[in-house]
C-alpha cells in the first residue's frame, strides 16, 4: 500500500491500469475522459515496454486493442458515450474472438452529441452487449475514486480469466472528481497462459496455429461457439456478482442506485433515517451480472423500492425483473447531465411513505 494521494478519477484509473501490468493504450480524445489518454501518453513511454498511441478514431482505437490483445498484451482503451457507440462493432468482434481487454466509459449525457455532463444513460448499451450479436460483458461501476482504482486492477484479471472484455462504467463525475486515493500494491493472481495468442508460429513449435477470429460461417459451429460463450457468462453470473448493501435488514424502503447516484442516495438514506423512515440502499457494483439476490431478499420484507438513476430509467427494468411483481418499484431520474440532489430523493421516499399510509 502506498501513501494517500489526491487524484482525479480518470488519472487514478490510468495509474491503476499501469500498476496492473497494462502496457498498451489506444485512445481518442473525447470529454470527459481526456485525462486517461493524457496520463497514459505521459506515463507509458517511461514504463518498460509501454506504448501509448493516439488513434485516428475510436473505431481505429478499439481495433488496435483487438490486435494488441490478440498478440497477448494487457491493453486498455477509454472513451465517453458517443465514442463508446463507435467502438461497439470492435467490442463485438473482441467478444467473438474471445480476447481480454479493459474498456472505460465515462458516461455523458445523450442521445446524440448530448452533453459533456455526467449521466448513466448507457446502462442498456453496457449491460445488453452493446454491439451486434448475442453477448455480454462484465460491467463494473465504481462509486468513488478509490473503488475505481480497485475495480480497474480487478478488471484486467477478470478479462484474462474469462477471455472477455470488461467494461468500467463511470460517469463524468467519477472521472473528473478528485479524491484521496491509496494505490494498492497489485498482486497478479494465477491465470492461464495465453497460449492462444498470435505471436509467431512454425510447424512443430508445440501449439496449433493461432487464428484470432470471430467468423464461423457454418451455422452449427457458430451456435456451438455462442453456447460456449454463454456457458462462460453463466460462470460469471455465479462467481462475479458484486454489490454493497447498507441498512437493508430492517428497511421499509430500499433505494437501488449505482455509481455517483449511489453516493447521493446514501446521504438521502441517512437523512430519512434521521426523520424516522427506515430506508436501505442496495448498490450494484457489477451492473452485469446484475445482483438479483440482495434485491429478491429485500423484497421479502420491504414495502417498496426506489431506483434512482441519471437517466430516464434503465436499470429500473432489472430491478423490476428481480422483484418480479412482489413489491412496487418506483423510479426517480434526472437526465441530460443533471445530477439528482439529496433533497429530491428524500422527497420521493417521503411521498412513497405518505401514499402507503
Amino acid at each position, binding site marked *: 500500500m502506498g501513501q494517500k494521494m489526491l487524484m482525479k478519477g480518470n488519472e487514478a484509473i490510468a495509474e491503476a491500469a499501469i500498476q496492473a501490468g497494462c502496457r498498451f493504450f489506444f485512445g481518442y480524445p473525447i470529454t470527459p475522459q481526456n485525462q486517461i489518454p493524457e496520463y497514459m501518453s505521459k506515463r507509458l513511454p517511461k514504463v518498460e515496454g509501454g506504448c501509448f498511441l493516439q488513434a485516428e478514431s475510436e473505431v481505429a482505437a478499439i481495433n488496435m486493442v*483487438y490486435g494488441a*490483445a490478440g498478440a497477448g498484451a494487457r491493453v486498455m482503451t477509454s472513451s465517453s458515450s458517443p465514442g463508446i457507440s463507435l467502438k461497439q462493432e470492435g467490442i463485438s468482434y473482441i467478444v467473438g474472438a474471445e480476447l481480454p481487454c479493459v474498456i472505460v466509459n465515462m458516461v455523458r449525457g445523450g442521445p446524440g452529441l448530448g452533453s459533456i455532463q455526467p449521466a448513466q444513460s448507457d446502462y442498456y448499451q453496457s449491460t445488453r452487449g452493446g454491439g451486434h450479436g448475442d453477448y455480454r460483458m462484465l460491467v463494473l461501476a465504481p462509486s468513488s475514486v478509490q473503488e475505481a482504482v480497485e475495480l480497474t486492477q480487478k478488471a484486467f484479471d477478470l478479462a484474462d480469466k474469462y477471455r472477455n472484455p470488461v467494461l468500467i462504467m463511470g460517469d463524468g463525475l467519477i472521472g473528473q472528481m478528485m479524491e484521496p486515493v491509496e494505490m494498492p500494491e497489485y498482486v497478479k493472481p494465477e491465470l492461464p497462459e495465453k497460449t492462444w495468442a498470435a505471436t509467431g508460429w512454425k510447424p512443430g513449435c508445440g501449439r496449433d496455429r493461432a487464428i484470432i477470429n470471430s467468423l464461423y460461417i457454418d451455422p452449427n459451429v457458430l451456435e456451438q461457439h455462442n453456447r460456449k460463450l454463454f456457458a462462460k457468462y453463466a460462470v460469471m453470473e455465479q462467481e462475479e456478482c458484486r454489490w454493497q448493501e447498507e441498512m437493508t435488514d430492517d428497511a421499509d424502503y430500499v433505494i437501488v442506485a449505482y455509481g455517483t447516484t449511489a453516493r447521493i442516495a446514501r446521504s438521502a438514506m441517512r437523512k430519512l433515517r434521521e426523520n424516522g423512515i427506515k430506508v436501505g440502499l442496495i448498490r450494484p457494483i457489477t451492473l452485469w451480472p446484475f445482483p438479483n439476490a440482495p434485491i429478491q431478499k429485500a423484497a421479502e420484507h420491504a414495502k417498496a423500492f426506489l431506483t434512482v438513476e441519471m437517466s430516464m430509467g434503465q436499470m429500473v427494468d432489472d430491478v423490476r425483473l428481480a422483484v418480479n411483481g412482489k413489491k412496487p418499484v418506483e423510479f426517480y431520474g434526472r437526465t441530460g447531465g443533471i445530477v439528482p440532489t439529496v433533497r429530491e430523493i428524500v422527497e420521493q421516499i417521503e411521498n412513497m411513505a405518505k401514499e402507503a399510509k
Partner: protein
Amino acid sequence: MAVVYEKTKMLTDKPLHYCPGCTHGIIHRLVAEAIDELGVQDKAIGVAPVGCAVFAYDYFNCDMMEAAHGRAPAVATGCKRVNPNNVVFTYQGDGDLASIGAAEITHAATRGENITVIFVNNAIYGMTGGQMAPTTLPGQVTTTSPYGRDPNHCGYPIRVSEMLATLDGPAYIARVSVHDVKHIMEAKKAIKKAFQMQIEGKGFALVEVLSSCPTNWGMTPQEALKWLQENMIPQYPLGVKKEVE
C-alpha cells in the same frame, strides 16, 4: 531428380475457395513465397480482411488475425506494437482498404507503421456480389451502378498508391499487376521488397496489385485479364510510387 518447383510451405493444404480465373490465388502464392524465401514464417502474422480474402487465415500457414471490414491496418498496428519483432502484414481488397478503411490505411501510412500491406484492387466488391467500389472505373457496370459508374453522380475512382505516396510516412509504395507472367514476376519482386523493408525496420510498405474478377465483371478469365490490361492500367499506372533509401 532435382526438385525445380514445389508448393510453398507458407500455404496450407486447404483448397482455395476463389472463383475460377480469379487472381487472388496467384497473389496468395506470391505473398507466401516472399515470406518463405525471407525465412520469416515463424515471425509472420497475417491480418485477413472482410471481402473475398476473408478466409485468408485458412490459407496462410502462420499465425493469423481476422479484422473487421477496413480495420486491418489498425489491428496490425496493435499487433506490431506489442511484438515489434513479428513480421505483420495485412491482405486487403479495394472495398475494404479504399472505402470503409480509408482512414485506417491513411493513418497507418502516415505513422510509418512498420507493417506490410498487400492491397488487391479488382475495381469491384467481389464477396458481396459485384457492387460498385471506390476503385470502379468511370462507366463500369456493377450491381449498384447498373447504368455504368457516373462520376457526376458518385465521383471518381481513388488512386490509393498515388494518394498515400504524397505522405511523408511510407517507406515503399508500388503498384503492380498479375495479368501476365512478366508482370507476375515483377509483382513478386515488389511484394518481397515490401516485406524486406519491414524486416529492415524501414517502415510502412504497400503493394497495390491490380487483380481480375471474372465472375463479377461477367467475363471469361482470359477476357478479364485483357480487360484489366486495357482498362485498369491506364487508370492505375504501374510502378514504384515511393521508395526511401
